[in-house]
């Protein structure tokens, strides 16, 4: 069992609040990813859980035991560092057995655990090597192996893939995902890469400015972002945002007049909507299309486009200067400066109020 529960966790350095009251639950066997821009406090939060930083206020409980003030070694957690943090003077075998040696375990038992971890991670031929004789990917696996032998309740990963090249990163990501399933382990993973967050996580925690913006499954966050920050942070290319005002509200929905000159009817209704209030309309690149006959809602000027073969990312600019990206299946040859007619898929539009919070309504919930 490994159920982690964090309540009102706070951390300040020299009077500056880094973590501003976080409440979070991590359930047994869950793969939780902390994601956010640099400086959002995600690594600090992980270090607080690991016990490498002192908590300013709040509590951390693991399976009902308060571990807020417990030393790192006694928390039943293992961590994989961004720099791998292998002991350079020890062989791979020694690196992996160090924790067990310190704990003074039975020699044969230690040997068995190290061999088992080495087998899982295919490190057997490398056991007698020193870290400097290993490639980046191999060091990464040793760091994971060092965590595995300790059989911790929770694995903590601090941006473990950021020092690997692109190809190896994809491969290691898959291996981690497989490892999570094989070991039936509980894992907490910190990254600034939203692709890693989307592909690995059971549960994504989006952090910004030391606060949790939203918690949920990757697709929940993708399809139902709670605010502008989450909407803009998850998804590549980014969600496009258009400023506007509400010009009409009735029981079927509302009409938004965009600064870019178009009016869009949305199936959104509710008490929070009132005529004249400023809103931001968000739309993902795959829900923007080139208009076919007659369904043009908006004219934009083509900027550069990225033609990837399978898809084309076409960057455009509205008459009010807002940048949007279209994701077109297949190939689209647009000329720089050309005027394009756009169609917005109104069922997939997100509406945010002046505070940046999403506006939901009974209509959308029913849909």
């Amino acid at each position, binding site marked *: 069992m490994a159920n982690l529960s964090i309540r009102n966790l706070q951390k300040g350095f020299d009077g500056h609040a880094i973590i501003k009251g976080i409440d979070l639950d991590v359930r047994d066997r869950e793969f939780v990813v902390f994601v956010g821009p640099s400086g959002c406090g995600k690594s600090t939060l992980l270090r607080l859980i*690991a*016990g*490498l930083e002192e908590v300013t206020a709040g509590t951390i409980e693991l399976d009902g035991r308060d571990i807020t003030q417990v*030393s*790192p*070694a*006694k928390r039943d*957690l*293992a*961590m994989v*560092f*961004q*720099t*791998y*943090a*292998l*002991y*350079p*003077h020890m062989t791979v075998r020694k690196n992996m057995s*160090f*924790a067990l040696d*310190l*704990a003074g375990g039975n020699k044969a038992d230690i040997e068995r655990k190290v061999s088992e971890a080495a087998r899982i991670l295919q490190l057997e031929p490398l056991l007698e090597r*020193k*870290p*400097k*004789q*290993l490639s980046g990917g191999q*060091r990464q696996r040793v760091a994971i192996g*060092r965590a595995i032998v*300790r059989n911790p309740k929770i694995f903590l990963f601090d941006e473990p893939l950021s*020092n690997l090249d692109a190809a190896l990163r994809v491969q290691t990501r898959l291996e981690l995902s497989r490892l999570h399933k094989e070991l039936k382990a509980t894992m907490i993973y910190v990254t600034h890469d939203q692709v890693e967050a989307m592909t690995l996580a059971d549960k994504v925690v989006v952090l910004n400015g030391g606060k949790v913006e939203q918690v949920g499954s990757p697709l929940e966050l993708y399809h139902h972002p709670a605010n502008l920050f989450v909407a803009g942070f998850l998804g590549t290319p980014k969600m496009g945002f258009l400023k506007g005002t509400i010009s009409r509200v009735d029981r079927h929905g509302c009409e938004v007049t965009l600064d870019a000159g178009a009016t869009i009817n949305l199936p959104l209704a509710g008490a929070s909507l009132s005529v004249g209030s400023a809103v931001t309309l968000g739309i993902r690149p795959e829900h923007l299309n080139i208009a076919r006959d007659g369904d043009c809602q908006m004219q934009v000027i083509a900027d550069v486009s990225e033609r990837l073969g399978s898809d084309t990312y076409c960057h455009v600019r509205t008459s009010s200067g807002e940048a949007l990206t279209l994701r077109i299946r297949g190939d689209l040859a647009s000329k720089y400066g050309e005027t394009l007619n756009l169609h917005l898929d109104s069922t997939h539009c997100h509406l945010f109020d002046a505070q940046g919070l999403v506006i939901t309504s009974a209509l959308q919930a029913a849909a």
Partner: protein
Amino acid sequence: MMTLKQSRRVQSLVLGTLSWAIAALVFFPIFWMVLTSFKTEIDAFATPPQFIFTPTLENYLHIQERSDYFHFAWNSVLISFSATALCMLIAIPAAYSMAFFETKRTKGTLLWMLSTKMLPPVGVLMPIYLLAKTFGLLDTRLALIIIYTLINLPIVVWMIYTYFKDIPPDILEAARLDGATTLQEIFRVLVPICKGGLASTALLSLILCWNEAFWSLNLTSANAAPLTALIASYSSPEGLFWAKLSAVSTLACAPILIFGWISQKQLVRGLSFGAVK
């Protein structure tokens, strides 16, 4: 016209000659000292200086007769090694805390420690002499061990601090998560990683202790005097005996030179921190 290859060859020839000339110039006094130690006193004073002469061992025999060389050498060994060991034992934990648990005052403390080296030792001769006298430490090895430890401590802490600063804190945090206590962190992780740097620091401290003359001359006489005091005793009021002075100097320098020669490999920091980019 010279080709590029030719001009490179000329350049390396000129540079090579120049380096050898400078090296010879620097080494010459030592060479002359060793040479003079094998001359008679008359040859040693001869003008122009003699390069070709009949070598003799009489100076060395005379030294062993007049003063027990091994007694002084043993004092030097004992004092230098003990002071260095003590100094390292204090400096390693101090540098550890300064490097990995830095506070607002760490930099200031380091500078202050180094600034104590700017004080001329003679300025504190009287208080230290009186302290040694009061505690019955005059002419004891313990007095020199304590003083050498303290005077080398700033530079040793500073050096070890810079070596420790190169170690990513992640490695120590990993050790902490692996269950290492502070002492295990220092002696099972940090010290083995920095062994090259620590060895060269210890060697430097050893050389500084071995060559120290001011305090050994002022605080010791017969019992605890190291080799530096022995050399000084040959510059006597009866006059300078160049050949004997050279012989005793050669004997005083030889052990540390040989020791330095053997351990010079450690002086070159050859340790790479492969696991960490």
